[in-house]
C-alpha cells in the first residue's frame, strides 16, 4: 500500500516532468504533501532534489538551433558515413564550415534504445538512422520528431533530385509519407556464382521448381546451394515473402497488414513450408542458426556457397577484392524465381532505402537545409563513384560502373515497374523481432511451418 502511494507520487511527478507542461513547483508541492506518508526512506528528500535537478536543470533539450550537423548511425553502415565525409571536404565544404559534420555510431542492436532515450529528451540529432524497423520510424514521424521531407525538399527546390522509384518505395514503406532520405536504393534478389553454375551445367532458374532442382544438383555435387545468416533471420524470411509475392501477387504482405489475410491462411503457410523444405534438405548448410551476416557473406564470396539472397548493397562488398575471392565478373544477379500459376511477375523486385536515414523536425533550420540540398545534389554520384553504392539520388556527374554486375543491377532498377514488400516491411517492431529470431528454427525444422506462421501472426495481432 505504502509502496503504491509512493510509486504513484513519483510517477505523477515524473510524468509531469517528462512532458514539461506544468510548473516544476507543482511537482515539489505534491511530493512534499505526501512526504509525511513516505516514511522509512531518506529517499523522499533526495527524490525532491533529483526532480528539481531533473526538471529545472540546465537541460539543452529543446534548443532548436543545432551547433553541428550531428549524424547518428549504426556502426555497421560505413557507406553513408564515408560518403558524407567526402562531401564535407568536397562539394559541401561551405555547408560544413557553417555547420560541421559530426558522426556518432552505435551498434545496430542498441540503436532503438538510444533513439528512445534521446527522443524522450527531445535531443535527437540533426540526422539519424531512425530505428531497425519502419514501424519505429513511422512512430517517430507521427509524434513530430521527424521532418516531412516532401515539404522540405520541395521548399529547397530539390525534390526532383530524388529518383521517382525511390520516392515510391519510401512512400510504400512509410505510411505514404516521405520520411526518409534515400542514401541507399536497393533491390533484392539472388546473387549466384556463375562459375559454379557453369561447372555443373546449370542455367539461371526462372521458376521456383527449377531453383529447387538446381539446388539439389549442387547439393549432390557437394556444393552448398545457399549461404544464409540464420542469426540475422531476415535472409530466410525474405525467401518466404519472395514465394508469397510471386504466388499471391504484389499485395501479399499488404493484405496481411490490412487484416485482409492472415499468415496462418493455407496459401501463406505453403510459402513457409517451401522454404522449410530447402532447410530440411540441408541446402543452407549446417548450423544455419548460428551463421552470422559476415560469415554467410564470406561463404558466398569465397565460393563455398553457390547462391546468396541479398540486397544490392552487397555490390560494395562484391567490388572489394579483399573480400571477394570469386571475382565480381563471376557473380551474377537474378530475380526471385516465379511460382507456377502465381499472380506475381518476375520483374517485380522488393526494394528498400537501407536503414531509414531521417532528419529531426525540430533541428531542421536553414543551415541544415543547405546541407540537405547539397547532399541531394551530390551524394548520388559520390557514393557510386567511390564505393559502388547505388542511392536514390540522381547521379548528376556521369560515373563509370565498376563492374558488369553493377551495371546489370542499375539497369534492373531502372526497368523495374512495381516494387513488392519484404516479409517484415509492415510489421510492428515486436512481430519483426519474433519473425527474425524464429526464422532459423523454421529451416532447421525445430518449428513447423504452421507453428512459425502462427507465432508471427500472434505477435502481429497482439500489438
Amino acid at each position, binding site marked *: 500500500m505504502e*509502496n503504491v502511494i*509512493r*510509486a*504513484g507520487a*513519483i*510517477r*505523477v511527478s*515524473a*510524468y509531469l516532468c*517528462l*512532458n514539461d507542461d506544468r510548473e516544476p513547483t507543482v511537482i515539489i508541492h505534491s511530493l512534499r504533501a505526501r512526504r509525511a506518508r513516505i516514511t522509512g*526512506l*531518506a*529517499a523522499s528528500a*533526495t*527524490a525532491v*532534489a*533529483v526532480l528539481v535537478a531533473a526538471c529545472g536543470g540546465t537541460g539543452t533539450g529543446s534548443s532548436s538551433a543545432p551547433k553541428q550537423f550531428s549524424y547518428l548511425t549504426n556502426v555497421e553502415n560505413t557507406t553513408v558515413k564515408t560518403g558524407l565525409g567526402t562531401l564535407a571536404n568536397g562539394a559541401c565544404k561551405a555547408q560544413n564550415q557553417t555547420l560541421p559534420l559530426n558522426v556518432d555510431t552505435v551498434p545496430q*542492436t542498441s540503436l*532503438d*534504445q538510444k533513439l*528512445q*532515450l534521446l*527522443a*524522450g529528451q527531445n535531443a535527437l540529432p540533426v540526422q539519424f538512422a531512425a530505428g*531497425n524497423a519502419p514501424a*519505429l520510424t513511422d*512512430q*517517430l514521424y507521427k*509524434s513530430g*520528431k521527424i521532418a516531412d521531407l516532401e515539404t522540405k525538399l520541395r521548399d529547397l527546390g530539390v525534390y526532383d533530385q530524388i529518383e521517382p522509384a525511390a520516392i515510391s518505395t519510401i512512400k510504400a514503406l512509410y505510411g505514404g509519407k516521405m520520411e526518409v532520405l534515400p542514401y541507399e536504393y536497393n533491390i533484392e534478389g539472388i546473387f549466384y556464382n556463375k562459375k559454379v553454375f557453369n561447372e555443373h551445367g546449370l542455367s539461371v532458374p526462372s521458376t521456383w521448381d527449377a531453383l529447387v532442382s538446381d539446388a539439389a544438383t549442387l547439393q549432390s555435387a557437394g556444393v552448398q546451394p545457399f549461404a544464409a545468416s540464420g*542469426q540475422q533471420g531476415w535472409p530466410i524470411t525474405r525467401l518466404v515473402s519472395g514465394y508469397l509475392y510471386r504466388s499471391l501477387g504484389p499485395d501479399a504482405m499488404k493484405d496481411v497488414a490490412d487484416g485482409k489475410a492472415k499468415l496462418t491462411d493455407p496459401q501463406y503457410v505453403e510459402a513457409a513450408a517451401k522454404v522449410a523444405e530447402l532447410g530440411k534438405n540441408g541446402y543452407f*548448410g*549446417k*548450423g*544455419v*542458426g*548460428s*551463421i552470422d551476416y559476415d*560469415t554467410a557473406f*564470406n*561463404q558466398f564470396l569465397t565460393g*563455398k556457397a553457390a547462391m546468396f539472397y541479398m540486397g544490392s548493397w552487397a555490390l560494395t562488398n562484391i567490388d572489394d577484392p579483399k573480400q571477394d575471392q570469386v571475382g565480381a565478373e563471376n557473380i551474377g544477379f537474378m530475380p526471385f524465381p516465379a511460382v507456377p500459376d502465381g499472380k506475381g511477375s518476375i520483374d517485380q523486385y522488393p526494394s528498400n532505402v537501407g536503414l531509414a536515414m531521417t532528419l529531426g523536425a525540430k533541428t531542421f533550420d536553414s543551415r541544415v537545409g543547405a546541407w540537405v540540398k547539397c547532399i541531394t545534389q551530390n551524394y548520388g554520384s559520390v557514393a557510386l563513384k567511390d564505393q559502388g553504392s547505388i542511392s536514390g539520388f540522381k547521379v548528376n556527374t556521369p560515373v563509370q560502373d565498376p563492374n558488369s554486375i553493377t551495371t546489370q543491377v542499375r539497369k534492373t532498377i531502372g526497368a523495374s515497374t512495381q516494387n513488392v514488400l519484404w516479409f517484415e516491411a509492415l510489421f*510492428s*517492431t*515486436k512481430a519483426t*523481432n*519474433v519473425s527474425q*529470431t*524464429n526464422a*532459423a*528454427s523454421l529451416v*532447421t525444422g*525445430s*518449428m513447423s511451418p504452421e507453428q512459425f506462421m502462427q*507465432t508471427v501472426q500472434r505477435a502481429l495481432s497482439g*500489438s
Partner: protein
Amino acid sequence: MHRVLGDRRAIVTLIGPALLVYSLVMLVPMVWSLGYSFTKGNTIDGFTGNGLHNFQRLFSDTAAHKALWFSLKYGVAVTVGQVLAGYLLALLYIFFLKRASAVIRTLVFFPVIMPTVAVGLLFQKFFQVAPQTGPMNSLLSTVGVGSVDWFGSPGKAFWVLVIMDIWRSMGFYAVLLFAGLVDIPDEVLESARLDGASGLRLVRHIVLPLSFPVLMSALIFSINGTLKVFDSIVALTNGGPGNATTPLTLYMFQTSFTYSDYGYGSTIALLLTVVCLLVTLAIFRVSRRDLTEG
C-alpha cells in the same frame, strides 16, 4: 555504555554520503521506474495511466512466463555450478597447491578479465558446427558421437550458456571463497585431524561449517547476478533460437526499448526484482543465524 558509538553526528557523517549517492542513483530511479508500470506508453509518444492492466497482462503473457522460467532455470544452474566449482577450486588452492597456487589462481581468474564480446566470440567459435567444425565438435567426432548444432536447439544452447558462465566466473568465486578459507585457523584443522578426521570428512564436518557464512554470501551474490544475466546472453545467443534463451532482463529490455512499451517493461522489471527478493529471503532463512541482523 555505547555513548561513543551512538554519536549521531558521526553516524550521519559516515553513512550519509553513501546513502545519498545510493538513493539518487538507485532508489529514486527504481521507484520512478516502478511508477511507469502503471502506465502505457513510451518516451516518444508519452505515458498515459493504465491502472493495473500491465499486471493483468503479465499473468497471461506466455512469453513472460517462459522468460521467467528460463531465468530461474539458468540462475539455479549457473549459481550451483559457479559456487561449487569456485569452492572446489578454493579447496584445491588451499590444500593441494600451496606454492603453485598463485600461478593457477591467476590463470583461472583470467576469464573474468576477458571482455564479454571476446567470450561470446570464443564460445561461438569453440562450439560452432559450420562453416568450420569447432574444437568441441571435433572432439565429439573423434570420440565417435558426431557433430552437434549447439545453438540450434533450446536445450543445447542453454547448456553452452551455462558452461560459458561457469567457466567465466569460477575463478572469481574461487578467489572470493579462498579468502574465506584462508581464515580458518590451522589449530582447528590440526586438532580435527588428530581426532581422526581426514579427507572428505574433514571437509564436511570442519571446513564446510566454518566457511558456511562466506559460502552463503557467495550464494546470495551469485543468484542475484545470474537471475539478472544479460550481457553473456546477448553476446552468445541473443535469446535464440527463437526466444528459447531469453531471460527476463532481455525480455524487459526488448519490450521497453525495441517494442516501445516502457510501461509494461517496467512491470516485467518489477517481477524480476520481486523474484530476486524472494530467492534472497529464502537463502537468508537457511542461514539465518549468521546473516540477518536482530
